[in-house]
């Protein structure tokens, strides 16, 4: 039967038996540490004046920077992103579907309205949304059943 292990009877080593660090590690370490502590000091002059300011002044300066950042982002942000988003979304709808939608109900748009489109100004919604040439529109209108008798 094995003797139970007892820590105080085990041969104590001064260190756990781990592999030593690379050769000359301890010779080079002080130099490496010195290089690291002195690197920020040589780079400091550009921002050194900040450290020289009093703490309340630094806080005020930081607050002013943050506020001007907000103001700049507010002023420089493009206006009306929603409108351009709507135009883009409508531009992606197939032309055929738009025509069917517009003609499906008299309450939306009539054939007469569409017939007037080629002559309207550029800002007309149908022209903007349909991107159709006058000839294309005329061809499509000709294909629709005529309801001229209602005007007679």
């Amino acid at each position, binding site marked *: 039967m094995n003797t*139970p*292990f*007892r*820590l105080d009877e*085990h041969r*104590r*080593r*001064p*260190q*756990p*038996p*781990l*592999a*030593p*660090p*690379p050769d000359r*590690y*301890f010779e080079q*370490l*002080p130099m*490496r*540490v*010195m290089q*690291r*502590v*002195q690197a920020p000091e040589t780079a400091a002059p550009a921002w050194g004046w900040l450290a020289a300011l009093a703490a309340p002044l630094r806080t005020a300066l930081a607050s002013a920077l943050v506020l001007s950042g907000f103001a700049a982002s507010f002023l420089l942000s493009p206006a009306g992103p929603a409108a351009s988003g709507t135009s883009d979304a409508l531009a992606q709808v197939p032309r055929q579907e738009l025509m069917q939608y517009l003609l499906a109900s008299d309450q939306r748009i009539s054939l007469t309205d569409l017939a007037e489109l080629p002559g309207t100004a550029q800002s007309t919604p149908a022209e903007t949304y349909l991107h159709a040439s006058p000839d294309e529109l005329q061809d499509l209108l000709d294909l629709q059943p005529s309801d001229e008798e209602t005007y007679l």
Partner: protein
Amino acid sequence: MEDQEILAKFRDPASRNVAFNQLVRKYQSKVYWHVRKMVLNHDDADDITQDVFIKVWNHLENFRQDASLYTWIYRIATNECLSLLKSKRRKFLLPLTDITAELTTNLEADESLAGDEIELKLQKAILTLPDKQRLVFNLRYYDEMPYEQMAEVTGTSVGALKASYHHAAKKIEAQMNTD
């Protein structure tokens, strides 16, 4: 060079670099091995050792000498070790057993332990301890640090440290006596 002399020279800008160089040479080995026992792998130990001395450089001017310089540096090193182990767990979102597995792999890769089965088993048993308990065990068992000094390093009471070491030793013995 005595600590008081190092501190006096450090406060003088003309001799600051020389004093700090002396300080690093005096404590580098102790700090490195203290850290290495916790993280096991050389690269992590090297990073932490350098970070410890950079913190010493940044705060030595404000060192109030409530504790000895040696204890103060040990305390910085201890906190750095515990932070690294904690951040590794958080970073990899691993449970305790997995970081222990990583440390065990480091241990098994260490050539100095090859062939010494009992020592390897002991080291693996030490690794099963929670980080803070492992730290207490290392300080007492390997460094033979007095409990009063350990209390300064860890910021824990002597009674709590004695209890922690006792529990750690019992856990290790139990582990060593399994199978």
